[in-house]
């Protein structure tokens, strides 16, 4: 028997889309979490409703690393179609739990195999043949609980939580869970090294998806109008919002709502509604993904040029075009930063965590109204649709920033001289008026206008206006969330953003431990880039920008925005296969680019552990 590996492994459940395994998978995730061990769960599902292979990975890690782990330690092979391939891709010493008739144990001799007669077991606990398919999944939970030492009481607690008020269904599933555990106790002998042991690293923490967190943030940010159009992976955000708002923002007696959520006919209409609503003074938002953002392009230009607020959650998925609709990427950075024709610059906020989804939702509304333009919250599928653990969110006590809205006092202060697009304060931000307040009116248009908001095609009026818009964007640099910087005594700096953060954190630990390479780190949280970004880049000799797209979009944006030559020493680490980025590939790539031999170095350092597959991308 190999050395015990405690609280440091990944479980992968391979099933078929539509087989109802999600509940069983969440029960594993939650019960390990309840035992105080840091976890993460990632769903790799096909763009299909039923019938195609799907994988769910639970990672338990005592050190709190929650990025995707490249290697699978414990495979639950429930899908006939992929079982063989899944087994063949495992590193030696790993474990396989499988449906007995598949006879997967005949494929290899260097793995631990646990055959389970699922059909036989499920027949004993579930008399309704139609339900068996669903209940069957809970059996592997039971087996895992025995094999990995996941406490049965925690499993039960997690299961009951998952089923909520559906007591009957919970009882039925409990039966299956117990049957699995009993079977394992009586018939299976543990030969793999993986174990769960109680810790206290998750006390008080929550498990939540990024999209729910974003929706919650939007509610607390005081959103009043939300117009949206269904698209994976963003739909669950407005859907969660509907749930929260119904519960907490409508009068329980009359049902009268302090919000309007409307499913628009398409993304053009949703952004149109957002602009109409914001223009009339509401806090308005939409939620979409790449294809939707593309459709919003024309309106995004209008919002920029006519200076209308609005919040857009972009839950990025893989493009171009329909791409891989259910896979993750950071591929909308460049196109969104300059969304629309003409000289246009949009504000982007980039959350890395569910906590930031919650907080940036609030930043987004404040910034949108302060700067009178769209603010895009650039989440992604990995963050939006997966469960993440987090400290509970803190109650926002900030005062809503409704921006420069003209009132009687301000009119007086301005000596009655109001011009919609006048730069009164020298920060590029004009004062607007809201219809229905009795304040002076103006005519909003996307065509040329002067400082007073009147139609104008004069060259100087046009140029003054777009120069002021540039000034406004400059002002935004000191208002958007600052980057998070960790300096170090080294020549190497890493820049990352969004969900790549979690792999970067782990990769930095690997670089330090395995190769003695210390790294500094800057996590970008917004565009425009605050001054800290330029300073960080100039402090280190070699900078690696880590991103999940092919074309190094953030690096390009840095090149465009920072002074000429400032980014000459900036390199890229890119990952773009649709799967969430992992630390191993990242560390290997950086080592190769640093002129070291990735594979050998790492192999030596991790002797007895996994062999390393080739880096996601060879060095330059």
């Amino acid at each position, binding site marked *: 028997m190999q050395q015990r590996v405690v609280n440091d492994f990944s479980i992968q459940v391979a099933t078929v889309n539509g087989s109802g395994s999600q509940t069983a998978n969440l029960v594993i995730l939650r019960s390990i979490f309840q035992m105080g061990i840091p976890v993460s769960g990632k769903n790799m599902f096909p763009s299909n409703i039923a019938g195609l292979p799907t994988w769910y990975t639970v990672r338990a890690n005592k050190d709190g690393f929650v990025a995707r782990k490249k290697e699978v330690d414990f495979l639950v092979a429930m899908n006939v179609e992929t079982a063989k391939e899944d087994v063949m891709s495992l590193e030696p010493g790993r474990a396989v739990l499988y449906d007995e008739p598949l006879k997967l144990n005949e494929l290899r001799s260097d793995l631990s195999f646990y055959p389970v007669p699922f059909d036989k077991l499920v027949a004993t606990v579930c008399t309704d043949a139609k339900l068996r398919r669903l209940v069957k999944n809970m059996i592997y939970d039971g087996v895992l609980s025995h094999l990995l030492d996941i406490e049965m009481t925690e499993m039960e607690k997690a299961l009951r939580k998952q089923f909520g008020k559906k007591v009957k269904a919970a009882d039925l599933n409990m039966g299956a869970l117990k049957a699995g555990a009993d079977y394992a106790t009586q018939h299976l002998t543990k030969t793999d090294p993986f174990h769960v042991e109680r810790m206290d690293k998750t006390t008080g923490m929550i498990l939540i998806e990024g999209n729910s967190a974003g929706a919650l943030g939007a509610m607390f940010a005081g959103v009043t*109008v939300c117009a949206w159009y269904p698209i994976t992976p963003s739909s669950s955000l407005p859907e969660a919002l509907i749930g929260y708002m119904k519960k907490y923002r409508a009068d329980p007696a*009359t049902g009268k709502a302090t919000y*309007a959520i409307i499913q628009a006919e398409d993304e053009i*209409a949703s952004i149109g509604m957002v*602009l109409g609503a914001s223009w009339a003074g509401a806090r308005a938002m939409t939620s979409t993904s790449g294809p939707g953002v593309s459709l919003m392009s024309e*309106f995004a230009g209008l919002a920029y040029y006519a200076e209308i607020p609005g919040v857009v959650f972009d839950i990025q998925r893989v493009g171009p075009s329909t791409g891989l609709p259910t896979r993750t990427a950071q591929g909308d950075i460049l196109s969104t930063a300059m969304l629309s024709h003409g000289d246009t610059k949009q504000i982007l906020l980039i959350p890395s965590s569910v906590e930031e989804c919650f907080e940036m939702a609030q930043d987004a509304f404040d910034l949108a109204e302060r700067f009178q333009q769209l603010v895009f919250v650039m989440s992604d599928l990995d963050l939006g649709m997966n469960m993440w653990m987090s400290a*509970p969110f803190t109650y926002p006590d900030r005062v809503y920033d409704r921006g420069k809205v003209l009132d009687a006092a301000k009119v007086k202060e301005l000596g009655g001289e109001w011009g919609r697009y006048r730069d009164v304060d020298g920060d590029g931000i004009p004062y607007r008026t809201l219809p*229905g307040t009795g304040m002076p009116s103006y005519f909003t248009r996307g065509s040329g206008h002067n400082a007073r908001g009147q139609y104008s095609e004069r060259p100087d009026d046009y140029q003054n206006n777009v120069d002021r818009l540039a000034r406004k964007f400059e002002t935004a640099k000191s208002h958007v969330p600052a980057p998070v910087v960790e300096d170090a005594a080294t020549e190497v700096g890493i820049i990352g953003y969004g969900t790549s953060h979690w792999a970067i954190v782990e990769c930095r630990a690997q670089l330090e431990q395995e190769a003695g390479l210390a790294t500094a780190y800057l996590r970008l949280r917004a565009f425009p880039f605050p001054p800290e970004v330029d300073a960080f880049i100039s402090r280190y000799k070699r900078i690696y920008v880590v991103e999940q797209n092919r074309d190094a979009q953030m690096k390009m944006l840095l090149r465009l925005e920072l002074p000429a030559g400032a980014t000459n020493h900036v390199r890229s680490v890119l990952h773009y296969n649709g799967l969430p980025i992992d630390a191993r590939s990242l560390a290997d790539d950086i080592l190769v680019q640093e002129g070291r031999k990735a594979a050998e170095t790492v192999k030596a350092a991790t002797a007895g552990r996994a062999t390393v597959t080739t880096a996601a991308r060879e060095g330059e």
Partner: protein
Amino acid sequence: MEPKKNRIGLEITPYRGGKTTLCAGCGHNAISERIIDAFFEMGIQPRDVLKLSGIGCSSKTPAYFLGEAHGFNSVHGRMPSVGTGALLANRKMIAIGISGDGDTGAIGIGQFVHLMRRNVPIVYIIEDNGCYGLTKGQFSPTADVGSTQKNGQPNDLPPIDTCMMAVQLGASFVARSFSGDKRQLLAILKAAIAHRGTAMIDVLSPCVTFNDHEGSTKSYAYVKEHDEPSGEVNFVPFFEDITVDYDAGTTTAVTMHDGSRLYLKKVAEDYKPTDKLAAMRLMHETHSRGEFATGVLYIESDKDDLLTQMNLVDTPLAFLPPESLRPGKGVLEAVMEEHR
């Protein structure tokens, strides 16, 4: 002599807008004039009005009326969504949307369809000249078969009848008029403004520059000749406290949402403006004769509009105080607890 004032004590000036930059004689200008008259005569505070439009000569017109109202000249064909959003934000406003036949019938047909379907409370005017004015005379989807462009090119695709669509889609007030018919247009506009729900008015509006030549079926002369009014339209605002005798045999009375009433005189014995099928038949029959039925063609006064359906609080969403927008600490704690 004292200048004329309306019931809220305003002169006509605040109802006027900037100087028009459209061609002299353009039908759109006449429509702007009627809009000015309608709002003035009804005594509506211009500041309570939202003016919305898409793109086109027609969509420029909100700059030429109700100078004191907030206006939004948005993007081509997408005024319906902007209007919907604005009304969701502030349900107290009266919205008037101006579109063109290209703006509505071509690029904007999708949004038009959904505006009608939702019964958004807006006065939606199509300034219909059968062509694209602003881009210099190309055919629009309302151009009639056989109509020619200025260069002689004939149109061989059948037109879309926006009124027919509107009735079918759920608009609760559908009318057609002619920009040169002052009395009828004014009456229809007033009725439309008083209506709660989508009031769609297709106003035939000759383009003097690109579509007033021989061979065009939208020329001033042609329309004048083929105009077939569906009835006498009289709008009596409730504040004037006038009761009009209603002759059951010849007229249909429709009570407006704000209590005012609209009186329609039938041309045909079996025509009821509240009867969807009759409206469709009327439009179909006149259209097949190459004629236009004008007047209020369809009305459904008790249909819930979008804002009613959404059961919004009385205060406009835009002006809700932070206290009613941000739930208390307990709510966040409860949600956090659910996720533990």
